């Protein structure tokens, strides 16, 4: 890759990711409204699109308050961690042929590692707030991450086995004839569920469960520090959607339209799906969440790995 072109791609991906994350605020509010028989924000600008700017101005100009009892350094650093780690994970996604920041050979492992690191943000944020609700939220985030990260990794192993590579571009190219959502449908379901838990989205938003924990790990956060957590969350949704598309739905592949358009369309389909889940499903109890993760999803993921491996050994 030549230096200048890659710089353009790096900044293009950065800016696109942040713009999409900001646009998700609007998209989520409009879609939630659509499914709740409302209109959502439709006043500011065409279709209420400038609501994004209004929200940004509001959240940047709000009072940024650090509680006197908080552990100040950690408190300030925590919101940044999630944004940085999630943005790092965008580096390995192949958006279209030739449009990727880094063609890492261990792309999937890098993605898993970066998305796991993101939990430090939540845990440290909850710890440094010195607030019992924030701490419980942080603890829940850690337990949830431990439980769900395990089978998130296992669920993509089937894909890796079929494609024979950890390199995301090679995985996409291996889906030339058949998207992996058909042979790996169990892996897809498990990956989607783990992905929601990873992005701490409803129905798995136990770390911030408003009805029981005030606002969970970000109880004490205000203004742009709070905004960073939400930026991280929206970046996370986009990242998980992009990963679902890359791993199971043939990435940029598709007829007629240019590859990048296909990738964006598929990604937004899954972002919309995440928002639909938020609109429809209630939050499970905490022990249900953990039992569901360890007793059901983990064995299912192992069975998926076993069956896929056995099939590939026998007929592959």
């Amino acid at each position: 890759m030549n230096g200048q072109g890659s710089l353009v791609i790096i900044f293009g991906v950065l800016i696109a990711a942040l713009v999409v994350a900001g646009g998700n605020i609007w998209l989520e509010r409009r879609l939630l409204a659509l499914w709740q028989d409302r209109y959502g924000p439709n006043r500011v600008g065409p279709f209420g699109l400038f609501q994004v700017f209004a929200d940004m101005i509001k959240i940047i100009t709000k009072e940024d308050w650090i509680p006197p009892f908080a552990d100040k350094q950690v408190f300030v650093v925590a919101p940044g961690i999630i944004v940085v780690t999630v943005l790092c994970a965008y580096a390995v996604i192949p958006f279209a042929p030739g449009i990727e920041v880094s063609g890492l050979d261990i792309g999937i492992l890098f993605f898993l590692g970066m998305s796991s690191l993101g939990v430090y943000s939540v845990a440290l944020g909850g710890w440094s707030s010195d607030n019992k609700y924030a701490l419980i939220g942080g603890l829940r985030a850690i337990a949830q991450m431990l439980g769900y990260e395990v089978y998130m990794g296992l669920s993509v192993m089937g894909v890796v086995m079929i494609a024979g590579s950890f390199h995301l571009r090679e995985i996409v190219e291996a889906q030339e004839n058949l998207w992996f959502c058909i042979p790996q449908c169990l892996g897809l379901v498990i990956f989607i569920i783990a992905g929601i838990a990873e992005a701490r989205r409803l129905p798995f938003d136990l770390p911030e469960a408003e009805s029981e924990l005030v606002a969970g790990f970000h109880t004490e956060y205000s203004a742009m520090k709070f905004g960073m957590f939400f930026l991280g969350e929206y970046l996370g949704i986009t990242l998980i959607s992009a990963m679902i598309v890359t791993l199971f739905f043939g990435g940029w592949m598709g007829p007629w339209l240019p590859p990048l358009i296909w990738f964006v369309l598929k990604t937004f389909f899954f972002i919309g799906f995440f928002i639909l889940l938020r609109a429809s499903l209630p939050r499970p109890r905490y022990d249900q969440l953990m039992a569901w993760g360890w007793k059901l999803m983990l064995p299912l993921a192992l069975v998926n790995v076993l069956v896929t491996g056995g099939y590939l050994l026998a007929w592959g």
Partner: protein
Amino acid sequence: MWSHLRTIWLVLLHAFRKRETVLYPEVKPDIPPRWRGRIILSRDLDGGERCVACYLCAVACPVACISLQATEDEHGRRYPAFFRINFSRCIFCGYCEEACPTYAIQLTPDFEMGEYARQNLVYEKEDLLISGPGKYPGYNYYKVAGLAIGGKGKGEAEDEAPPVDVKNLLP
């Protein structure tokens, strides 16, 4: 699990339902005539003020937002010298309307009273008075009351017999 999937599907179908939202500034909401909104002072059909400045509304007001001063004109008719309602305090409970013996003070189905300056919410008598009788067109207090005022003596009101001469035994 099945019920979860069904829930997701049913919520998705809500995308095609009719919207519940009333797009307010363009579409006005349908407000019933007894809605308790902006307070007005009404007039008789012949144009006189109905308010007799009895202070009952000011007494009934739970937030003490009504203030007035009674005075009399040359016919002996009571009326308020000033009548002031502070709408930044008013809770639109309607007690003043219930207390009013002459149907003078009435609540109307108007709620669009937004102001930028708080002082603009203090309405004086000329802001409150309307030209008509409001919700009760057929009522004129001085025409049914037994009170003697200029131009109408005792016993000259509607449905009223002339006063009895208590010093006379004749039927």
